[in-house]
């Protein structure tokens, strides 16, 4: 009898404890954000090892407004898609371009940055633009919009070969080594990267009219909530200020960094 009572009370106690824990978890459940750390100036580590960048500032502000803590998970760009779909992370940032193919599989909030592709070469190569690239080896990031652009225009510009890298750092190493002649990727990252490196130059802007946004699992309720917060952040000038902080200039009034936009639909 005594034993049974003990058992009973401990079962009830455990259940209560679990209930309390679950409640506490629901209240303070951290917002898990996936990001491809190393993607300057969007999300990268500073000397102290802390995650910093335009999109880190943005998700921190969004989390504050949602009343939740933030946990950043470092996930390679290609892994972000399955990570949001499987629910491993709540949302993903990494200068992700909204495309119609991606909208079939995932959801995006309204865009907050207008971007283009760019061609980066070494200063020593003497290459001045895409027109010089016939028969040359170019590098891209696997599965990026730069990869898609280069694949579509391979015949038009007569690229000798397209090599696909796992990010900016190895591609830049190979560019300086002479393994590749040019690198096609998002222009803001390359402008930021080449800023203090005279041996590397952004030779040409490739207009593609891309827009970045935050990615969610398909039709996640969180997407609409974050979309509404982005509207506030644009109206209050938070995004313009963040742009100025990381790019040293205010965004133009016509860009999606300033203009409130609709949530993209497939």
């Amino acid at each position, binding site marked *: 009898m005594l034993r049974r009572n003990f058992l009973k009370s401990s079962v009830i106690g455990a259940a209560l404890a679990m209930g309390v824990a679950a409640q506490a978890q629901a209240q303070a459940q951290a917002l898990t954000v996936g990001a491809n750390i190393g993607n300057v100036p969007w999300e990268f580590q500073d000397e102290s090892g802390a995650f910093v960048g335009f999109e880190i500032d943005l998700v921190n502000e969004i989390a504050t407004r949602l009343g939740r803590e933030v946990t950043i998970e470092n996930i390679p760009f290609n892994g972000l898609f399955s990570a949001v779909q499987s629910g491993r992370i709540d949302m993903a940032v990494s200068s992700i371009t909204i495309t119609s*193919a991606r909208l079939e599989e995932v959801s995006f909030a309204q865009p907050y940055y207008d971007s283009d592709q760019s061609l980066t070469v070494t200063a020593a190569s003497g290459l001045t633009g895409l027109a010089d690239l016939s028969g040359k080896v170019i590098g891209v990031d696997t599965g990026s919009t730069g990869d898609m652009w280069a694949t579509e225009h391979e015949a038009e510009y007569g690229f000798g070969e397209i090599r696909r890298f796992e990010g900016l750092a190895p591609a830049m190493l*190979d560019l300086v080594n002479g393994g590749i002649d040019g690198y096609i990727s998002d222009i803001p990252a390359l402008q930021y990267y080449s800023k203090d490196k005279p041996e590397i130059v952004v030779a040409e802007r490739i207009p593609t009219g891309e827009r970045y946004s935050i990615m969610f699992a398909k039709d996640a309720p969180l997407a609409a909530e974050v979309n509404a917060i982005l509207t506030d952040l644009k109206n209050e000038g938070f995004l313009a200020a963040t742009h100025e902080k990381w790019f040293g200039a205010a965004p133009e009034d016509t860009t999606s960094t300033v203009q409130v936009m609709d949530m993209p639909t497939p």
Partner: protein
Amino acid sequence: MDILDTFFNVPVLIRTFPMLMWGLWVTIKIGVVSIVLGLVLGLLLALVRLYSPGVLQGLARVYINVMRSIPLLVLLILIYYALPFLGVRLSPFMSSVAALSLVSAAYTAEIFRAGIEAIPKGQFEASGALGLSPRYMMVDVILPQAIRIVIPPLTNNCINVLKDTALASVVAMPDLLKQATQAQAVAANPSPLIGAAIIYVALLWPMVSMVSRLERRFGRADR
């Protein structure tokens, strides 16, 4: 979006199938060339390790130990990204083959050495008594018996080499796994990864089951 739509999305699989097949071809090319080079180098290395004069034997032992200890990924990055500073510029294909066969040779050498050492001493003595030169003793007596012993572990090593080709993606080689991750980003759906996994299994299953069959057969013959 449930798990089937996300991971077993048939339209996505069909759409990305040609990309995966292209990747499979690259994987097979890298794998086969590395396996063949690894076998030849490994056999030579085993003979040097067993029968050459002291200094060479020591060098072979150092090589085998270093190559078995170094992570393949590190070796691959050194060959592709660091050698150009010394003026050696290998293509992604050559870098992948070099790294894989250098490491495979070390493992193969140890397998061959174990096989040769497993041959009873009497066989060596009998060959000597018959007046066979060391070369004929190896080619006609010892190696035919040793190879039978080493086929199952060698096949295991080949399977490992084929799986390790996936590391070639870090040197921009479009192998099967790389093509799958690329297809995954283009379609924003991870089904191509499952497609790649199925192809890997289909490719390696016959080799894996062959190892078991051979092990059973040789096991019987010994009794």
